[in-house]
């Protein structure tokens, strides 16, 4: 348009340009060099429509539908599309988990409408969707509020006209409860109502076994939740088991369990539920009796029913018993609530009682028997809850007790008479649930049944394999029956039934066997057994038959610690499981020792071997010494045994010295860490024990005999060192040792001193304080104490040293071996050293001066020896010895106020 206006104006301006006439409506021809921008194609293909193109970043399902669309489609009138929408949602959520998080509420709000869906397939799909995707992926996000959204619809569905929808609703409810157990308590009452309602409807269980099974499964779930809640509350009251490592001493409990007032109404509901379930069961049995074989479905149904009854009874019984526990010292309030509940419960259960042994009429296969057996066990369990009132006379107990007895004995009654149970594993599973009730039952029943039940139980216990899970159940039942005082519920146990004792003894005798069989493979079970033994020991009154029996446990328990086998290789020691068990087990095992009223020396022997085991931890070793000492103090160990134990421990303890000794020895105990420190702490513990044992001089007398015995067997130096110190701990100045002991001690001591002298490096100057010297000082220290206390001993030793040198002379003159030529040199060296050490110690000066003459004699002998040219030595050696000797001389002379020249002259 603009252009067309401009055109007519231009000619008026001038004539320089040629007038161009143009017709309006014509266009300028395109320039020749223009590019053709026209696009031609046969068809236009758009990947998306306009709206679609805007959601590039959005999450879509496989079919390209967004969540919004899918949710809309869930309420489509066509069932297929609804189903497709649900599967779509599943896809989408699986692909984009974030989508679920964001729109959780919207999704649930839409999906819940489908709970009442008429179409079966849709319902099933929804169930799968919730079960596999939505619930697992948003465990934490879904709170009570969201659950309540779902619940409204579920409850609605539960009252729906169509049976299918109703059953489906129960399925949904079960799912919710499984995923979110906390939600159950809020709705428990209401749901139980619905369950009662649907179970009343007789038609269902006759026709649709499968669905009924689902429903009952849900009910089992709910009831077990209720039951576990009760247990949890109980546990809260007695939470002593888990030892607290809390930082603060006084803290408020974080978990505060709300006291639910509505729970009593739940009990009423449960009471209503029980007769209906029983009715249900009863009808099933009549049905089965008519049938030739029992089919899997109806069997499952019946089992579920029984489980429901069991749980309901368990909860109610718990409630009935509870007031007794909580009110403590005051008499229970005589409200008739629990009593009423009890009596009505009995009325209902009587029906079940009449059915009790569910027995097949016709001859049947083994599998069938198994099934009947399972059902019977189910019923048994129910009645065991009521065992406390079994003597009321309301029920005929014979067949019941007979069944349990046979059950314990591993037999089953069938139409063909009694025979052994077919599958062991199968029985064990059921036995586990029955065992906890046995002690209560035994305490209740009267007459011969008591004996037969005890017999059955004992038999079953003895047959139980140690590695089975049942062993723990047996042990806890045992504990209840062995320690009736602890569990006050069975107070009348021991007093009412004298025969029990023989069974108790049989059980106690069984315990060490179990312990040995367990070995070190099941430390947790071992610990339980040991704890039980400890408890028996703690609670047995002195001189009662049980404590006698406890004392007898020592014999079998020896093997638990260690035994000495006299096999081909004489006296190898077989270590029991004790050394390999973890620390806490060992600790408990040790504590058991304290309660033996008389520890036999045989048992102590085995314990000693155990102590000398290299693998034993130092801490445990110290604990053994401590416990035995306490036991001794309480008068459970003979004094001679105790001393023997301590001496043997010090004498035989294998010490792996530190590196300082010599290369050769070090190679021997390669890989072993030095345990000198352990030995030190052990000897320290032994010394404190010795000093607390009683009259010192008496103990010393006993001790010496043992010590000389051990020393005569030439143990390593470290051990002799320990033994000598033991004497020092008890002795005083002047010594309390008798003359003959001193003379024998002197002979041992002299050889010890010479042996120890071998640690003195040859080329060491006395004045310098070096490693070698300090080691010798360590070994020499106890000798100094002994000399200090007994001049006589010192005299003997000096005599010996003197003879040593002279003896050398004699030896030397007879043989002129090159090897032995250096030997006397060493001896002279050693004697010089020992004397220097003696003189170094201020405490010995007085004693030394009393045996002046002997010292003089020795010096002269050495002098003579050195002066003689009888044995060859290099100049260097001679010089060294001479300087040592001079050192000694000045020392001695200073002490005795001799003139050095005097000595030379002689």
């Amino acid at each position, binding site marked *: 348009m603009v252009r067309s206006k401009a055109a007519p104006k231009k000619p008026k301006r001038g004539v320089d340009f040629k007038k161009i006439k143009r017709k309006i409506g014509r266009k300028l021809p395109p320039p020749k060099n223009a590019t053709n921008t026209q696009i031609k194609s046969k068809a236009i293909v758009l990947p998306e429509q306009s709206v679609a193109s805007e959601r590039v970043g959005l999450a879509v399902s496989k079919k390209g539908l967004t969540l919004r669309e899918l949710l809309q489609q869930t309420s489509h009138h066509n069932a297929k599309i609804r189903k497709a929408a649900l599967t779509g949602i599943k896809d989408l959520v699986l692909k984009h988990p974030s989508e679920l998080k964001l729109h959780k509420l919207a999704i649930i709000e839409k999906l819940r409408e489908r709970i009442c869906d008429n179409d079966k397939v849709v319902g099933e799909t929804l169930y799968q969707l919730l079960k596999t995707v939505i619930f697992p992926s948003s465990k934490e996000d879904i709170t009570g509020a969201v659950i309540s959204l779902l619940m409204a619809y579920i409850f609605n569905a539960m009252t729906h006209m169509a049976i299918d929808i109703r059953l489906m609703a129960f399925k949904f409810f079960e799912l919710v409860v499984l995923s979110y157990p906390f939600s159950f308590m809020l709705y428990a009452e209401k749901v139980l109502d619905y369950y009662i309602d649907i179970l009343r409807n007789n038609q269902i269980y006759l026709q649709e076994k499968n669905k009924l099974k689902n429903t009952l499964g849900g009910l089992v779930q709910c009831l077990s939740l209720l039951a576990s809640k009760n247990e949890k509350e109980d546990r809260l009251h*007695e*939470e*002593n088991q888990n*030892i*607290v*490592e*809390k*930082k*603060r*001493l*006084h803290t408020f409990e974080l978990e505060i369990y709300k006291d639910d007032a509505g729970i009593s109404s739940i009990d009423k509901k449960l009471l209503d539920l029980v007769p209906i379930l029983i009715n249900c069961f009863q009808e099933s049995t009549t049905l089965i009796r008519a049938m030739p074989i029992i089919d899997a479905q109806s069997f499952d149904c019946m089992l579920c029913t029984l489980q429901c009854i069991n749980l309901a009874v368990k909860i109610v019984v718990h409630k009935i018993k509870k007031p007794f526990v909580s009110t*403590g*010292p*005051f*008499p229970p309030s005589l409200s008739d609530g629990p009593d009423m509940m009890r009596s009505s419960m009995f009325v209902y259960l009587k029906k079940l009682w009449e059915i009790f042994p569910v027995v097949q009429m016709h001859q049947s296969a083994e599998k069938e028997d198994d099934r009947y057996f399972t059902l019977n066990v189910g019923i048994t369990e129910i009645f065991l809850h009521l065992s406390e009132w079994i003597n009321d006379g309301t029920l005929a107990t014979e067949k019941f007790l007979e069944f349990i007895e046979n059950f314990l004995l591993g037999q089953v009654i069938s139409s063909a008479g009694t025979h052994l149970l077919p599958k062991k594993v199968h029985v064990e599973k059921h036995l586990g649930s029955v065992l906890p009730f046995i002690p209560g039952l035994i305490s209740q029943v009267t007459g011969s049944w008591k004996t037969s039940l005890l017999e059955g139980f004992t038999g079953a216990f003895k047959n139980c394999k140690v590695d089975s899970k049942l062993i723990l159940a047996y042990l806890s039942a045992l504990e209840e029956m062995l320690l009736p005082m*602890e569990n*006050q*519920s069975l*107070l009348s146990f021991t007093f009412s039934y004298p025969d029990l004792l023989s069974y108790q003894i049989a059980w106690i005798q069984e315990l060490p066997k179990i312990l040995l069989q367990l070995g070190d493979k099941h430390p947790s079970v071992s610990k339980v057994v040991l704890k039980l033994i*400890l*408890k028996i020991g*703690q*609670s*047995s*009154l*002195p001189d009662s038959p049980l404590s006698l029996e406890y004392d007898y446990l020592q014999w079998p328990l020896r093997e638990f610690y260690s035994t000495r086998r006299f096999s081909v290789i004489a006296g190898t020691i077989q270590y029991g499981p004790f050394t390999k068990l973890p620390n806490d087990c060992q*600790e*408990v095992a040790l*504590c058991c020792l*304290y*309660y033996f009223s008389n520890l036999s020396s045989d048992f102590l022997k085995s314990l000693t071997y155990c102590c000398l085991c290299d693998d034993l931890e130092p801490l445990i070793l110290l*604990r053994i010494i*401590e*416990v035995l000492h*306490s036991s001794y103090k*309480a*008068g459970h160990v003979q004094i001679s045994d105790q001393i023997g134990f301590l001496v043997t421990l010090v004498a035989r303890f294998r010490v792996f010295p530190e590196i300082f000794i010599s290369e050769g020895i070090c190679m021997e105990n390669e890989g072993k860490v030095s345990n000198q420190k352990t030995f030190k702490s052990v000897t320290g513990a032994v010394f*404190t024990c010795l*000093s*607390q044992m009683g009259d010192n001089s008496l103990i010393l007398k006993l001790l010496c005999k043992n010590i000389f015995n051990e020393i005569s067997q030439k143990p390593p130096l470290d051990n002799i060192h320990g033994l000598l110190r033991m004497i020092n701990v008890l002795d005083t100045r002047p010594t309390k040792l008798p003359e003959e002991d001193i003379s024998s001690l002197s002979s041992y001591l002299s050889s010890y001193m010479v042996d120890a002298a071998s640690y003195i490096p040859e080329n060491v100057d006395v004045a310098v304080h070096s490693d070698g010297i300090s080691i010798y000082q360590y070994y020499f220290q106890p000798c100094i104490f002994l000399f200090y206390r007994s001049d006589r001993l010192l005299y003997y030793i000096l005599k010996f040293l003197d003879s040593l040198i002279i003896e050398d002379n004699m030896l030397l003159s007879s043989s002129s071996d090159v090897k032995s030529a250096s030997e006397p040199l060493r001896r002279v060296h050693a004697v010089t050293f020992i004397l220097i050490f003696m003189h170094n110690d201020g405490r010995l000066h007085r004693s030394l001066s009393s045996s002046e003459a002997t010292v003089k004699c020795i010096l002269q002998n050495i002098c003579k020896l050195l002066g003689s040219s009888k044995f060859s030595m290099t100049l260097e050696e001679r010089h060294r010895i001479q300087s040592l000797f001079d050192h000694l001389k000045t020392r001695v002379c200073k002490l005795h106020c001799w003139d050095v020249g005097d000595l030379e002259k002689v």
Partner: protein
Amino acid sequence: MEVVIASSPVDSGIGCWDLRSGAEQLRYRSCASPPHGLLAVARCFLASSQVRDSRAAASAPIFFWSWDKPQVEVRSFPAEPIGPLVSNSDGTYIIGGGLSGTIYLWEIASGKLLNKWHAHYRSVTCLTLSDDESLLISGSEDGCVRVWSLLMMFDDMGKMSARNLYRYSFSEHALRVTDLVSGYGLCNSIVISSSEDRTCKIWSLSEGKLLRSIMFPSIVDAIAMDRGEHAFYTGGRDGKIYIAALNAESNPNGIYGMFIIGSLYDHSKAITCLALSTDGGMLVSGSEDGTIRVWDTKSQHVTRILKHAKGPVNNVLIIRQPLRACPPALANAQASLSRKRLSLSLPPPLSKYIDSTDGEIETKAVNLLLPPWQDPEKSKYCSSNVIKKQIKELQQQSSSGAAEMESERLRLECKRSIQMAQQWKKLYQELQNLCVNELLNGVQMDDR
């Protein structure tokens, strides 16, 4: 004056020192006590159970000493050897734990055995009372710690209906319980028990459960608790005194392990007993080597070493000794009364068996109604028998106590009579005035 008293299982008497100055006081003769067997009953006199002469001996006596005489004054012979002793702060009753696990309860005033019950399977090793003296806590050789309500022990109805006599039974200790200490806070306090299994366990009396278990590097034989429940001291067999945290901050990586804050050490042998002074500033420890060390808890150093005997010390107590030498100038009626009570002879010996001769055993506690001039805090509980006896005495006017009460009554009566007389006097005066006035008025009237 706070004094330290100490005894030993070998016969070396009871040593007594002034805590502040360390000066040795009177030494009470012939005492060989078992652990926890020494007791100062209501600060009035000393009591100690005795060790058996030999293992075969069937019984061992309980001795009483008065403060100012070194000789044993009263000897009682219970049915079996008694280990630990405990009494309430008023000195109304004394409780002892027997070798067989039986607990005995005597009334001091009459010496009657009011009650005994079988408490443990094995011998009772230590006893303590809760802060308000309503609960008795006993530890035993079998590792069990039990809490008893004293009220319950006299409540026959309650005993019948309850499942068990004890309130709580803690069986977590594996070996012999060596010491027990209860905290502050009436009957809801904490209790600390030590055992030969090398642990100390802290229990809550209100909840009846274990609060904490502390593992020590050695066996603990003695515990002393800080007044503020901040920490507690434990004496180990290795000669160290460990300080363990209660409410104090503790370092889980400490050298001795969790909850042990530190240790005191002075080259002594095993520590057997501990006591804290009332202000918490001084800790006294008795040791196996026969010495008693006094520690300053702030600086954690030994301030004094007291030598007791050659044998081991196994009991130390810190007691505020009553003022004996009271200057006569200060002696008012009150002081003379209390002194008289002190100088009165000690209570009769404890009886061996429950006395059933007077027919029905009446062990009802009676709160003695005190005359108003006495301090109400000093109210004493006595069994009805004692009260009956006192009443009888009062009637016969024979005993000194009765005479005292009688004179007191007379004094009061006299006072009241004087008051009465004065009142009468006043009335007469008024009456006379009135009459005189009336008369005068009458005269005036007549005059008119």
